[in-house]
């Protein structure tokens, strides 16, 4: 029984290993869960706020957890070819940081 548990754990770990990019693959599932629970805002609202702040095309979104807070990191490519990173509090939609990626 204990062995089986270890095997399952190992399998899970190995699965985790294979899914290293898969870890970030999981973030949208987590985001979906958190949104359904009402803990964070829908991404659509965050992106709207980001675009209002910095017009451009969204090229990447990440949901991170820092100090117990859910943070949305939105990468935007603007018309000047600059990539901007905007950090939002996922729960309130408040802009935390706004910086150019150099």
């Amino acid at each position, binding site marked *: 029984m204990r062995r089986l548990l270890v095997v399952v754990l190992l399998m899970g770990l190995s699965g985790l290993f294979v899914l290293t990019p898969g870890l970030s693959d999981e973030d*949208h599932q987590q985001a979906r869960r958190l949104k359904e629970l009402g803990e964070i805002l829908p991404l659509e609202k965050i*992106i709207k706020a980001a675009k209002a702040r910095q017009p451009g095309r969204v090229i990447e979104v990440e949901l991170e957890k820092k100090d117990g807070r859910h943070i949305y990191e939105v990468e935007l490519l603007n018309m000047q070819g600059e990539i901007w990173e905007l950090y939002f509090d996922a729960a309130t939609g408040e802009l935390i940081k706004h910086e150019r990626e150099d």
Partner: protein
Amino acid sequence: MNSVQQRLQLGLVASVVLLMLLLWWLVAGAIEKFGEEFVQSRLEHDADSVLSALQVDENGVLQLTPGRMTSIYKQPFSGHYFMVLSDDKTLYSRSLWDESLVVSKLPKGVIRQWNTQGPAGQTLLVWAGGFQKQGQRFTLAVAEDLTPLLESLVRFNWYFAGLSLLTLIVLLGVQHYVVRRAFRPLEQILHEVKNLQQGAVGELSEDVPAEVRPLVREVNHLLHLLGERLQRSRNALGNLAHALKGPLSLLSQLGQQERVRALPDLSANLKQQTDSIQQLMDRELKRARLMGQGAPGVRFAPQEEMPVLVDVLQRMFAAARGQENPLNIHWQAPDIVFIFDRDDILELIGNLMDNACKWAKHQVHCELQGDEHHLQLVVEDDGPGCSDDEIKRLTARGVRIDEAAPGHGLGLAIVRDVVEIYGGTLTLDQSSTLGGLRVSVCLKNRAVNGSE
């Protein structure tokens, strides 16, 4: 709307708009169809990759083999999405993030396609089908954002509308130019008709476009016919007057017979009537003589006509007056062409000068003035003239001042006729220079009298 130009423009606008609408419907429809078909075939390919990446794990749960999907399905709200619905689990592409597509489960082998609203205001084309893999039944939906396609369609519509408008404007311009050119000959004809009215030409030029040539021919034909008819009726009147001369002189002779003289009432009556007929005939004969030559023209050139007229008068009165009492006829006229009926004016001047010559001692003076539409004529002589009383009576209609001098009264009657036709004025008074009678006539031509 009685303008050929406007009718052509309306026709052109209608046909161009219709043509452009048809073309737009065809092209825009084709573009949209091709675009959707292209998107659809891509969706089918993507569905194939998703299908091949799907695996059923040992627990009988559907899983996606990682790393098999293109990155476009990973970028949130990229416009490319998929969803896999099975009985116990739903898989979403990462690009959907926390959004979802409204997809109902489809039985195996059924394929559907529809449009729906996606995240971030996107319009999606959804391609979905029911499948079975490794014993698991599931529904796969793949979707792509149609916004770029729709945007380019909108852009195309604007370009097309602009192009249509430009085409329409250019075509209208070209048509305007062509119509203007096509109608230029009509302006030329109008000019010629004016010349015709002034008597400068006898008929219209037939060197015109084929479309108007029949009209011009008809007008020429009509002109010819009218001229002939006028000439014929004048000739007929003259001929009639001539033909009546014989019977009339016979009647006069009858009146001279003893048997008739025995009845003074009858004789006087007969003489009065024959005299009246005689005078009417003289009038017609004179008219025919004065008008006889020449086509009907509405152009009176004094420098051409006056010498002939004066010559005729000189000859007419030379015999009666004898060598010791020659007649001096002076005339004065501007070197222009009056737009008046030549025959009317000749009759007018001829009669007035005939009278003047009849009464003049030595001098007759005739003066013409005015412009082409207005004619002022003064004829005066150094004869005995008329008293104010006589003048007053002369001006009254139908009164003859001297019944004994045949022709005088009638001459004035003809003059009055002509003046009345033209709505002009006739004034009789004493000549200040020659002392005799002075007759002044003012005429306006019909064009000025009429609509112009």
